């Protein structure tokens, strides 16, 4: 059992503190993504027809597949936490590997989508060269599309880094039923990344 940090009364207190620290950190993440979505909300209401027109150029199918990937990666992450708490090292590691592969496939689909957009010239406003979309404000939709999904993809990458770090420690047995704070906290972070996508997908792809 890892000896708890010297300035905490008990391991329990330290876990509670770290968990609350994680929640406060998630507040800052919510406000960062939220700020971006406020920008999107304002522009969508300022130029509804341009944005509606532009959103038709998004591949809803690819978006849906990505949503399925991320939700199932949330499920495997929750499984990983459960198995770690139950002390099942192998099962937890497999779940973590499952989460990583789902995340990787999310990135691959993302790559396909982005290259499709680049090809069609549906780029942020300054570089927008598409000819079909006539409305002047349509390029702004793609600016916001690339900023939101880009920032989200960056968070997925960070998440994968964390997952690899947790996988290593789970596989080595350091994280097990006795001490699994890092697993839970990375679990929080991963579920949050999935949460953001749960809002991004309908806002950008379905409703537009």
């Amino acid at each position, binding site marked *: 059992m890892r000896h708890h940090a*010297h*300035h*905490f009364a008990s391991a329990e*207190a330290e876990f*509670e*503190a*770290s968990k*609350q*620290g994680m929640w*406060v*950190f998630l*507040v*800052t*993440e*919510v*406000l*960062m*993504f939220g*700020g*971006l979505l406020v*920008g999107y909300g*304002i*522009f969508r209401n*300022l*130029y509804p027809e341009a944005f509606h027109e532009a959103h038709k150029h998004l591949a809803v199918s690819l978006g849906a597949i990505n949503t399925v990937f991320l939700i199932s990666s949330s499920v495997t992450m929750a499984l990983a936490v459960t198995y770690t708490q139950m002390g099942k090292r192998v099962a937890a590691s497999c779940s973590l590997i499952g989460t990583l592969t789902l995340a990787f496939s999310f990135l691959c689909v993302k790559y396909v989508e982005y290259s499709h957009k680049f090809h069609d010239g549906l780029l*942020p*406003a*300054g*570089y927008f060269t598409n000819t079909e979309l006539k409305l*002047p*404000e349509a*390029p*702004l939709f793609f*600016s*916001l599309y*690339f*900023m939101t999904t880009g*920032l989200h993809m960056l968070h997925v990458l960070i998440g994968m880094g964390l997952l690899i770090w947790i996988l290593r420690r789970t596989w080595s047995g350091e994280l097990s039923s006795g001490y699994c704070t890092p697993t839970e906290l990375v679990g929080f972070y991963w579920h949050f990344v999935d949460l953001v996508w749960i809002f991004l997908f309908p806002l950008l792809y379905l409703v537009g």
Partner: protein
Amino acid sequence: MSNYLAAKGLRSWLTTLDHKRIGLMYLFSIFVFFLLGGIFALILRLHLFGWGKDLLSADMYNQFFTFHGAIMIFLVIIPGIPGALGNFILPIMLGAKDVAFPRLNLASYYIFMVGAIFAASALFLRGADGGWTFYTPYSIRTNTTVLLVLTGALIAGFSSILTALNFIISIHKLRAPGMTWDRLPLFLWALYATSIIQILATPVLAITLVLLIAERVLQIGIFDPKLGGDPILFQHFFWFYSHPAVYIMILPAMGVISEVIPVFSRKPIFGYKAIAYSSFGIALIAFIVWGHHMVVSGQSELANFLFSLLTMFVAVPTGIKVFSWVGTMYRGSIHLYAPMLYALGFLELFTIGGLTGIFLATLAIDVHMTDTYFVVAHFHYVMVGGTIMGLLAGVHYWFPKMTGRLYSERDAAISFWSILIGFNVTFFPQFILGAQGMPRRYWHYLPEYTMLNRVSTVGSWFIGFGFLYLMIYMWKAVRYGKASGSNPWSALTLEWQTSSPPPTENFEIDPVVTDWPYAYAPDNVHMAVNK
């Protein structure tokens, strides 16, 4: 148990997890950046003396006031009191051994330094202009390396978030047994409210800066009118952080003043609950008033009406605090040591700053006064008069705790009076200049403004001398100051119940709080230091 300064060698400082050492490192870095920003200010004032020959070319002048603003705000007064004094004092005042996440605390300092290096590196390239507000579309068009300053501010923002996170969790989880919420010292209440603002506002600054960087690099065009964006929307994003940021700057200073005045009046704080809750009042109202910065920006009239009305309510909690501090001194036994001098300086300057804030909150007045020297004077009165005076009061108040030594009171008085008089001579004429319509950020001004600008420049020399003198006697005190004993001011808060300088673990035996930290008995009028 050896005190925290015992371990020697650079490695012991750079890899320390001790909140006290991190606090000192913050204090030293903040003082260096304050001097750098101060030098820019003195040169600006020298240029504005206006004896015909130009000290600075137009572009140089624009870059000087941009760097003065950006350095002073992002690298001095926002990290200032929380980073330096907060890191040092909060854990001891709580009765804890350290902050909740020491490693995160050290990371926050390094992230702050990386951000500072990014911002400062622009100095050696093509500089940056556009003021610290970086309004679009100018900040998108200019070809100065403003990108570096933006990245610097973005990185420094994360350091501010991590410090706030540390403080919130420490206050929640690490209070000494017996320290209930209504026995929490007011400095901690202030830091708690400040941390909440930092957590809720700084991420929006982060996304604003990311968007502005994306404007310059990827031309996303949402703030660029040429590509269909709306520059006023940038101002909304910017001020949604920057107005709460001015409360991030002032609340910790108010916390220091709430600690200093009762100790040096030897009397309980007047209206403890009112002051504690007004910190929260300010923290909440801080988020709904930002539009008063944009009255003439092209904002809708309804927004002007709403923001001006809401801004009026900010003055109420601030008024409660000021009146309570003066109430604390009533029937006290007042010792005029340096911390008290700076606290009184704070009261004088902040009252002027606060009252002129009400002018600017009134719609009609703001139309004429915004973007003139009236605003420059107002925010210097509240930022320098408030935050810097609070920082100096805190530094002098906890100097014995940090170093175990005493500075010379006579020298402190000299530098205090030089700064106070210099400050008033510098900035009060600027109210008049603003009323007469001299716009801010002007490289050349019309001849009729020359006289007041010259008076203002002379005043700035006194401020310069004051801080120079402060550096000298502080350095002298660190090396040769008389031993101060563990509680020179005979204060009741926890940090004075341990030795000065405190041991690495802060307390020999874990403290238990038994009563209110401001319960000064009527006969408790003497201080250890003046025996």
